[in-house]
C-alpha cells in the first residue's frame, strides 16, 4: 500500500512541476516571446559556464578526496613500467581534456545568440583538418610505441630462474599448487578430480606429482625480488587472477593454460609499513564474472624473504602424503565432497583445512 502511495505522490509532484513549467511558458508568451527567449538564452549561457567552473572545482575536490585512497606504488618491478606509462597517458589525455572542454564551454558562452550577432559562414578548411588529423595521429603513435614496448616486455617469456606456481580457479576460490623439491608440476587430468582427496585431478602415476604441495589455506607464497611465473587454469568457468598491487591480471580459462610472470618488490611486511596499515594484505581478486560467489572469490598473496619462504615450505606436507595416508580413506570423502556451487567459501581438498574466511 505504501508503495502505491509513494508512486501516487511522485506522480502528483510531477504534475505540479509540469503545471508550473507550463504556466511559465504561457507567461512567456504573454510577456513577449522574443524577449523571454533572449533572456533564457543568456541565462543558459551563464548556467553552462557556471557548470564548467563548478566542474573544474569538482574535479580538483574529487582528486583531493580520492588520492589518499589510491593503491601504493607498484609492488612488482613490471608494475613500475605500468605506473610510469599511466602517468604519461594521464598527462597527454589530461591536456586534451582541459583544452577541448574549455574551448567547448568558452565558445558556447562567447558566441551565445544576441540581436547583433550573425554567424560566420565557415564550412570547411582543409589545412585545419590536416592539422587536427596529424597531431592526434602522432600522439597516438607515441602512446602505441610506449604501450607496445611495455606489453612486449610484460608478456615475454619468464626468466629461467623464475619460481613456478600453479593457480587454479573454481567456483568460488583459488587452489594453489607448488612443484615441490623437483621444481616440476606433475600432470593433471580433470577426469581424476575428486573434491575429497584430489582437488586438481593430479595423476598419481606421474612421479612428478609426488612432492607437489597444495597450500592448505590457498595462500600464494612468493619470494621478494625473485621472478615468479604463475601457471593459470580453471576447473569450471572462466575466472581471472587479478593482482591489483602488482598491476597484473590474467584470465583462468577451462581447457587452456595461461601464464603470467612478474617480480615482487616488497614483502607483505614492508607493504604494511608503506601503507601504514597493519592489516594490509595482498589480495587476489577474481576479475571475470564467474557466478553468484564471484564477489567473494578472494585469495591472498604472501610475499616474504627467501628464508621465510623456505621455512614455510618446509612446514608443508605434500598433497600425496595428506590424501593417501590411511586416515583419508575414500570412505569419509563422501561426507565432505561439496558440490561446486553450494557456498562461496568452501574448502579446497582436505577436510582438516580451513580457507580464508570470506
Amino acid at each position, binding site marked *: 500500500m505504501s508503495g502505491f502511495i509513494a508512486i501516487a505522490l511522485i506522480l502528483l509532484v510531477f504534475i505540479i512541476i509540469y503545471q508550473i513549467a507550463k504556466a511559465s511558458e504561457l507567461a512567456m508568451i504573454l510577456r513577449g516571446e522574443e524577449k523571454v527567449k533572449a533572456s533564457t538564452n543568456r541565462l543558459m549561457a551563464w548556467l553552462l559556464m557556471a557548470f564548467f567552473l563548478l566542474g573544474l572545482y569538482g574535479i580538483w575536490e574529487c582528486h583531493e578526496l580520492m588520492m589518499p585512497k589510491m593503491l601504493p606504488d607498484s609492488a612488482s618491478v613490471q608494475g613500475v613500467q605500468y605506473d610510469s606509462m599511466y602517468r604519461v*597517458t594521464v598527462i597527454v589525455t589530461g591536456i586534451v581534456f582541459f583544452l577541448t572542454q574549455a574551448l567547448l564551454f568558452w565558445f558556447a558562452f562567447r558566441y551565445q545568440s544576441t540581436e547583433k550577432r550573425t554567424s560566420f559562414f565557415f564550412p570547411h*578548411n582543409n589545412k585545419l583538418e590536416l592539422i587536427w588529423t596529424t597531431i592526434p595521429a602522432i600522439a597516438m603513435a607515441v602512446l602505441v610505441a610506449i604501450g607496445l614496448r611495455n606489453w612486449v616486455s610484460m608478456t615475454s617469456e619468464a626468466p629461467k630462474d623464475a619460481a613456478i606456481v600453479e593457480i587454479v580457479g573454481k567456483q568460488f576460490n583459488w587452489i594453489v599448487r607448488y612443484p615441490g623439491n623437483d621444481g616440476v608440476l606433475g600432470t593433471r587430468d580433470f577426469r581424476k578430480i575428486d573434491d575429497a582427496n584430489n582437488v586438481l585431478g593430479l595423476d598419481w602415476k606421474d612421479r612428478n606429482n609426488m612432492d607437489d604441495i597444495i597450500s592448505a589455506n590457498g595462500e600464494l607464497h612468493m619470494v621478494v625480488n625473485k621472478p615468479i611465473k604463475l601457471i593459470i587454469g580453471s576447473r569450471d568457468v572462466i575466472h581471472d587472477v587479478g593482482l591489483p598491487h602488482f598491476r597484473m591480471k590474467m584470465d583462468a580459462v577451462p581447457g587452456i593454460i595461461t601464464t603470467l610472470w612478474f617480480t615482487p618488490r616488497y614483502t607483505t611486511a614492508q607493504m604494511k609499513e608503506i601503507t601504514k596499515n597493519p592489516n594490509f594484505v595482498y589480495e587476489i581478486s577474481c576479475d571475470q564474472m564467474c557466478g553468484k560467489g564471484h564477489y567473494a572469490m578472494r585469495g591472498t598473496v604472501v610475499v616474504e624473504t627467501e628464508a621465510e619462504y623456505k621455512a614455510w615450505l618446509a612446514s608443508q606436507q605434500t598433497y600425496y602424503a595428506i590424501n593417501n595416508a590411511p586416515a583419508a580413506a575414500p570412505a569419509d570423502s563422501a561426507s565432505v565432497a561439496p558440490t561446486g556451487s553450494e557456498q562461496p567459501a568452501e574448502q579446497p581438498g582436505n577436510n582438516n583445512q580451513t580457507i580464508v574466511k570470506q
Partner: protein
Amino acid sequence: MAGIVASIKVKQMSDVIIDGPNVAHAHAHDEHHGHEHHEQHFIMKYLFSMDHKIIAKQFLITGIIWAIIGALFSVFFRLQLGFPDQTFPIMEKFLGEWAKGGKLSNEFYYALVTMHGTILVFFVLTAGLSGTFANLLIPLQIGARDMASPFMNMLSYWFFFISSIFMFVSLFVQTGPASGGWTTYPPLSALKEASMGSGVGMDLWLISMALFVVSSLLGGLNYISTILNMRTKGMTMTRLPLTIWALLFTAVLGVLSFPVLFSGFVLLIFDRNFGTSFYLSEIFIGGKALPHIGGSPILYQHLFWFLGHPEVYIIMLPGMGMASEVLSTHSRKPIFGYFAMIISLIGITVLAFLVWAHHMFVSGMSPFLGSIFVLMTLLIAVPSAVKVFNWLTTIWRGNIRFTVPMMFALGFVSLFISGGLTGIFLGNSALDIHLHDTYFVIAHFHIVMGVSAFFGMFAGIYHWFPKMFGRYLNNTLGYIHFFITLAGAYLIFWPMHYEGIAGMPRRYYDYSAWESFRHFTSLNGFISIVSIIVFFAQLLFVFNFFMSIFKGRKLLTQNPWDSPTLEWTTPINAGHGNWPGEIPEVHRWPYDYKDDGNGNDFIPQTVPLKPGEEAH
C-alpha cells in the same frame, strides 16, 4: 511496394496548418487526391502501421519503457552497492523472493546487472535509438514517401516486440533471468550447474536475442536500401544531412556484424542443449567431470566481440549524426568540415571491425595478436578526434541558441570527449592489464556509449519531437532534465575512474570483505544517492514526453528551428506519404546557413541556387 504507398491515407489538408513554399503544392494535391482519403482503423493506423513515422514512435515508446525498467534495475543494485549492510523493504515489493526482507540476494544482483546491460545496450540504445531515428529521419530527410519496404519495416518492429516479450518473460521465471553478465561468456552461461540464471532464463535470453538480431537485420537492410535508392530528385549523396550518413553506417555495421553474433548464439544453443563442445573443454562442475573436450571459450569471445565492438559504434554513430545536425542548426552555422565528417565516419566504420579483441587482452589470447589490436584501437581515436574538433569549430563564431536540444548536443560533445579519452587508456594493452574489468571500464563506457549516446538521443528527441507529434516538449522541464542529468552523470562516473585505478573489480555484490577495496564504501553510497536522483530526473523527462504528446504547446509553424533540411517542408502532422503534393526537389547541401536576402539566416535545401551562387 509502390502500391502500398499510393493507397495510404493522406491526412486531410483542412486540419493542417501550412505555411512556406508548400502551400501551392498542398492545395493542388488536396483537390487531386482528396477522393482517396479513407479512415483507417485504429489497429491498422497505430499498431500494425507501415508508416515509418508511426513505426519510429513505436520503437521510441518501447525503448522508453525498456529504459525505465533498465534504469530501475540499476537503482536496485546501486542500493545494494551503496549500502550493503542496510535493508530496503521497498525492494521486496518489486522483487519479492529475490529481495527477502529488503536485502537483494547475490544471485539476483547478478541477474539485475546482466539485464541492465542487455536492456540498455540492445533494447534501448540499439533498437530504441536507431529504430526511432532511422525510421523517422531517413524518409523525411532524403525525400521519400516511406521506406523501401514498409512491410519489412513493420516486421522489424514486431520482431523487436516479440523479442522484448521473451526478455520480459525471462524476468519472471523461477530460476531468474540470465545472470552471467550481458556478454554471457560460456562456460558460465552454457552450464546449468554453474549458475541459476544459466537455466531457463538463459534459454529465453538467447531466443530473445536471436529474434532481436532478426529485427535488427530487417531494419538495417531496409535503411541501407532506402538511403541508396529512394533519395528525391537532386538529393545526391553529398547533399545528405550527416544524420543520414551516420544512420547509413550504423545500418552497415549492424548488417555485417549481427550475423556473426547470431552464429555465436547458435553454437551456444548447441552447447547448452545438444551436447556439442564448441566452447567447452575439460570442465569439472557440480561434483562431476563433463564429457566435453576440445572446445574453446575464447572462440565465443571472438564471435561475441566481433559484434560487441561494432555495437558500440552502432550506439554512438546515430548520436554523432544527430549532434552534428543539432549543433549546426542551433548555432545557425554550417557543420564544419562536412566531408571530413563523412570520411571520419567511414574511418570509424572500417576500423570498428578491426578492434574487437581489445576486449580480450587478458583472455589468454596471443600477445602478438594483442599488439595489432592496440594499434588499430588507438588508430580509431584519430577519426573520433577529428569529429570533436569539427564540432568545436562548428559552434565557434556561431550565433548560438540555447534550446533544449542544443544543450543536450553540447553535453553530448562534452561527455564524448571525457569518455573517449579514457578509451586511450583501455585500448593500450599494457595499461588494460591493470584496468581491465575494474570500475575504470564501467566509468569509461558508461560515459561514452551510455550517457553520451543518451545525450545524442535526447538531443534528437527534443529536436524532432515537434516533427513527431506536432507539439513541443516543455522547455523548463527540458532544462531541468538537462542539468540534473549532466551534473549527475559526471558525479556518478567521474569518481568511478579512481575506484578503477585502485583496482576495484566490477560486478561485485559486496566489497566489505576486501581489505583493498572497502575504503570506498562511503563513495559508493554517494554514487548511489546521485544515481537515484538522476533516475527521478529521467522519470521527469518521461512524464514531460507523455504529457506533451497530448498537452504540449502546439506547433504553429512548419519549421520551428529554421532548419534547411527536408523534413521541415512536410506539413505539421504529415500523413503517410509525408508530402501531400509532389516530393520537393533538392538543389543544395543541407547546411546553407547564410543570408537568403529576405532576412532569414538559412536557405532551405529546396531553394534553387541563385544565379552566380556557388554550390557547396
